[in-house]
């Protein structure tokens, strides 16, 4: 499977990574090479094989749905690129 420049543009958009037009041919080539490499997997018959998502197959532990942490907005906001009072600030989203 190879990807063309349109597909790279589409993937980049889904991944929210800004890509300039001049970068498209190189990325298409690199991503196609990697996808070509993983293409080997299609040699294997995996019909009926249950996907393995984690090496720890036990049921994931649950816990009571209660607040266990928090109450220190200052720490949470300490690394924010931009903040306003106790909020993270971003460019205007709604006109």
């Amino acid at each position, binding site marked *: 499977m190879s990807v063309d420049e349109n597909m790279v543009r589409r993937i980049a958009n889904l991944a929210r*990574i800004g890509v300039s037009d001049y970068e498209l041919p190189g990325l298409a080539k690199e991503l196609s090479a990697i996808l070509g490499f993983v293409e*080997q997997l299609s040699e294997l018959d995996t019909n009926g094989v249950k996907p393995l998502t984690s*090496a720890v197959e036990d049921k994931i*532990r649950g816990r009571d749905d209660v607040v266990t942490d928090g109450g220190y907005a200052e720490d*949470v906001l300490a*690394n924010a*690129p931009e903040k306003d009072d106790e909020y993270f600030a971003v460019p205007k989203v709604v006109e």
Partner: protein
Amino acid sequence: MADLTELNLAEARDGLAKKEFSAVELTEAHMARVSASSALNAYVLETPEKALEMAAESDKKIAAGEARPLEGLPIGVKDLFCTKGVRTTACSNILGDFTPPYESTVTQNLWDDGAVMLGKLNNDEFAMGSSNETSRFGPAVNPWKANGTELVPGGSSGGSSAAVAARLGIAATATDTGGSIRQPAAFTGTVGLKPTYGRCSRWGIVAFASSLDQAGPITHTVRDAAMMLTSIASFDKRDTTSVERDVPDYEAALTGDIKGLRVGIPQEYRVDNMPAEIEKLWQQGIDWLKAAGAEIVDVSLPHTKYALPAYYIIAPAEASSNLARYDGVRYGARQNGVDIDDMYAQTRAAGFGDEVKRRVMIGTYALSAGYYDAYYVKALQVRRLIAEDFTKAYEKCDVLLTPTTPSAAFPIGKNVEDPLEMYLNDVFTVTVNLAGLPGISVPAGLDADGLPLGLQLIGKAFGEEELLRTAGVLEEAAGFDAQPQDWWSA
């Protein structure tokens, strides 16, 4: 006084206990070497004040007869571990000057046991790489050289391996997603242990591929690795995949007795074009273990060749999801855009390096509508086949012996233009992550250029005691005592 940086972890612990030197003296000796080592670029942040403060506290504990297991032992921390109040970047520009308001569980365990932090160590950006060349701080350099050429220290934990090999810290923390502890250890003549998935908490470690990531140590000796594992292993409610299981004293497992142990030799690891030296070293390892009383068994791991292709879907898929958090909103370096979507795209374009972008895009593609079943689900099915290969092999044997890497350390710049060539570094290590098993690389010999080579032992899930015991026997038989010649100290 002898050079305190020549000591390994166990020797330094014993010397401190006998009051032959103080924790401050031990720490100062290492700090002096660290500050003269900029040619290796192993540390991306030195924390001398913190180190001296912690060492002074250790001296008080020792004087009061309250020494903890790692009291006063100075170590380096891979920049993937969040350290409270100390800049943590995963060596990515996108994290800017991120300074965590919390401490990772693994490092907290070390500090609770009295260890001293010298600083943060270089790694490939978000641990994605096998050469430490994708770091925002530039490559870490291997203290070993061949014919005057500068070599990579392996990756992603290249700062950790370079630091331990150059004695810029008695031990180091590292992480391993596809080989990132074991391959750098093999490239630098050090011991690298990747524990069983779930043995050490992932809480506070910058996530790459959450179902594969596992923390572990890089050390001088197998005993040191056992000491480190005893400290960093713990059950942690904050990591849902942390396994609730007692932590034994791993050092006590090093009895040196492996009589009757069944050692499996997987035939599929005899890959094409494997250098004769590595083939020979592997045979040497077989002979050593046999001489120590182990029984050698041929086993088959038939899906081995599909491990790298499956990994290069699974790890990028998980990375694309994990790295979605880097949006320039809550932390890290933001780039302004014309609107919020553009801000995300510009922030991520400027903040991620080329390899990270490639992997996030591959992962995004593999998870996208129309391709999910063909790539992601398929890779997870193959992952099960690989895990089952090990289950079947372990019906016939107790541990597996393989080479760690298909080559010795390579020159800086050699593989940067060809991602696929770089990926092949992990051909012998990546299966272990997919199956969630423990693995260890032990330095076992030198190649014709005088560069270290490692042998890998793979254990059963939570079989770290047997694994370390076998590694101890291998280490003893190999008697590896070569050291890189110091060309870097300024």
